[in-house]
């Protein structure tokens, strides 16, 4: 009983010990904040990684792909049908895309993905990242008549800067652009006729001509012969671009676009022949997707599977079957992805097909994040351990200061273990206070992290969480109760361990010598 009473009294009268526990408090708070933010980022990232890819990716090792997705899917279903919720064949091909900005062609290196818009939604949550509400329900590669999101639907309306140019995106924008182009062409013609009239038959500069018309002239095979393509009322095959391909974010969080839904782009990619030849086609941007993973948003573009197969010559002329490079597989909830992967890999020759989970695909990235978290945890825990030595020093001082009291307690019949218990209990109390306050502070910090980041940004003039780098508007956090418990328990354990040595010293004090201590 006296142990509790004395612990309590020492706790209330020895402020120096509370000062030394502050380092434990700060260490615990920092660990909780770091773990929560890292967990938030990891979760957000995994969510989006998994959202863009299927759970399993069945891939042909050939760039040209293999024939007959249906047959392959039937075989996959035979091997592991009970675990599979959905499948969708795709064609992945590296490509070069040209955006036209102010009459200049801007190249972009992209991965072009041919998807089957009917089944792709069943394997990936790609659809929910699209910018048109109708497309989010069911993607169609048709240009919409306006109605694209002006405010990012994935963010708080209060924090996201509105993308005002998106108000005009769609057919209105396309009609406006074609009107401008036509006017420019008319002016050009007028200039030319004037020039011819004045006798100076200088060649008209080609660059001022409508680049669409140039392209259409160069690659007229996309359109039926003998008919003019009217950009004001017709579109090329639709393409969905990652928002990072033709947009970028300013440091203040607003977005700038190099193209909008309604603009045309030109894409070059290899034909499915040996040796590869390059071919180019026009596509019309019909929507953007924004997964907020800059790797994806800056490199992936989606087109209809059938169009890409046709354009790359991947359709077998005899059977009409298309080639595919990848089958995205969605597993039922609770299915063991690794086990299904191994079963599928065993069923198909490894020289020709590769089966991987989405985690395998993003292995290095996930491992790097995991590594970062681990290293940070080790470093921060070392900080708490250093704080433990502070406790040790302070406790040794307190034991010296309390030598006479220890003698008194022993003369009154307190046992060695009882005296040791006082100081161990004191260490435990300090650890509990430190870890408790630290946990509270950490959780409070996590709950208010965005407000704190805003405040810091205002004070320093530097954005802490640069929206140009991260596509999230808010810092994502996840508080894992288990982690918090472990951190707090670790801190308490360190405080107790640090008090073992002084407590043993106190317990071993000789009562007479302790009583005579001045």
């Amino acid at each position: 009983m006296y142990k509790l009473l004395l612990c309590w009294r020492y706790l209330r009268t020895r402020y120096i010990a509370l000062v030394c526990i502050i380092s434990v408090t700060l260490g615990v708070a920092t660990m909780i904040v770091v773990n929560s933010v890292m967990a938030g980022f990891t979760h957000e990232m995994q969510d989006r990684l998994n959202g863009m890819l299927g759970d399993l990716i069945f891939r042909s090792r050939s760039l040209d792909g293999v024939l007959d997705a249906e047959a392959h899917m039937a075989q996959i279903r035979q091997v592991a049908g009970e675990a599979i919720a959905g499948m969708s064949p795709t064609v992945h091909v590296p490509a070069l895309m040209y955006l036209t900005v102010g009459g200049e062609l801007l190249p972009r290196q992209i991965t072009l993905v041919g998807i089957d818009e009917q089944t792709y939604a069943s394997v990936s949550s790609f659809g929910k990242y699209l910018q048109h509400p109708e497309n989010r329900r069911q993607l169609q590669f048709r240009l919409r008549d306006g109605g694209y999101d002006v405010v990012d639907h994935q963010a708080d309306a209060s924090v996201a800067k509105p993308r005002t140019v998106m108000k005009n995106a769609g057919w209105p924008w396309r009609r406006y652009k074609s009107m401008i182009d036509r006017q420019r062409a008319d002016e050009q013609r007028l200039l030319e006729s004037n020039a011819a009239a004045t006798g100076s038959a200088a060649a008209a500069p080609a660059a001022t001509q409508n680049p669409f018309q140039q392209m259409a002239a160069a690659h007229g095979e996309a359109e039926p012969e003998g008919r003019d393509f009217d950009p004001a009322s017709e579109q090329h095959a639709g393409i969905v671009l990652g928002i990072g391909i033709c947009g970028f974010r300013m440091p203040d969080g607003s977005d700038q676009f190099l193209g909008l839904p309604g603009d045309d782009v030109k894409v070059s990619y290899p034909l499915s022949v040996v040796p590869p030849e390059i071919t180019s086609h026009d596509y019309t941007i019909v929507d953007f997707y924004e997964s907020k993973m800059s790797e994806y948003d800056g490199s992936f573009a989606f087109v209809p599977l059938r169009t890409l197969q046709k354009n790359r010559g991947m359709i077998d002329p005899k059977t009409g079957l298309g080639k595919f490079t990848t089958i995205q597989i969605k597993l039922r909830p609770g299915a063991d992805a690794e086990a299904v992967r191994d079963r599928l890999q065993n069923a198909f020759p490894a020289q020709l097909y590769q089966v991987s989970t989405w985690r395998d695909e993003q292995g290095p990235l996930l491992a790097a994040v995991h590594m970062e978290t681990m290293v940070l945890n080790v470093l921060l825990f070392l900080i708490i351990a250093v704080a433990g030595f502070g406790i040790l020093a302070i406790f040794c001082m307190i034991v010296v200061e309390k030598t006479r009291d220890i003698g008194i307690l022993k003369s009154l019949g307190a046992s060695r273990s009882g005296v040791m218990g006082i100081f161990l209990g004191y260490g435990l109390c300090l650890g509990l206070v430190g870890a408790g306050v630290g946990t509270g502070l950490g959780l409070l910090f996590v709950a208010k992290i965005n407000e704190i980041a805003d405040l810091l940004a205002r004070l320093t003039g530097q954005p802490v969480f640069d929206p140009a780098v991260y596509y999230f508007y808010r810092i994502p956090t996840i508080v894992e109760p288990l982690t918090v418990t472990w951190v707090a328990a670790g801190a308490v354990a360190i405080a107790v361990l640090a008090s073992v040595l002084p407590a043993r010293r106190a317990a071993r004090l000789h009562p007479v010598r302790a009583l005579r201590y001045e």
Partner: protein
Amino acid sequence: MSNLLDTSVAPPWVSSRRSTGAAAALDHAAAAGARRAIHLACRGLQKSYRKGPLGIPVLQGIDLDVREGEFLAIVGPSGCGKSTLLHLLGTLDQPDAGVVTFEGHRIDDLPAAARDLLRNRHFGMVFQFYHLLPELTTLENVLAPALIAESTIGYWLRRSAHRRRAWELLELVGLAHRARHKPRELSGGEMQRAAIARALLSRPKVLLADEPTGNLDRSTGEQIMHILGELNRRERLTIVMVTHDPWIAGQADRTVHLAEGRIQQG
């Protein structure tokens, strides 16, 4: 008489963990000299303090008997080993040679736990510098032996009884009005009275007082001596008091002189 020498019955302060035979073994030399009502005794007690390779002898063979209900004063000049003798009698320290017996049982070689129990239940101790715990109030200081003896739950179960006893003792020493004060707010005499109340809490059989008036002026010292004398007379409490003051020693039933580590006869 017979039950004092009965080795088969373990004394109450020997914990049950310990086998009774060796633990409670009587020292036969002591037993031979023991007469009825000898309460606390020592035979051939030697103690020296080590200073480097040399041992400085403090006690060089002390034989002492304290009868039940006796008020004994040990007097002697500073440094003659009075306090050391008292510590040995109170099992705070262990002798190099010789035995200490309490109610006929040898106590100097008991294990630490049994000696802790003995100090807690059967010996009350009062020191020259009061030795109150500065973090606790007067009342809590008086309750300290009970707090030490009881587990947390046991204390709360018997809390009211303990507190009643503590209040009685504070009334006895005239400190009830100071119960809520911390020791630093008390005068020397008040602190010593609180220390006496604390020493009496567990109804000990022996009170060991080490210069109880050594730090007090004459009139305050007289108050303390009055309290001790009353306790001795009314409660038949055995008191062993160490002092260098012949006047204080005169209040006791019997005085023993200690010089150069030996009892001086006469």
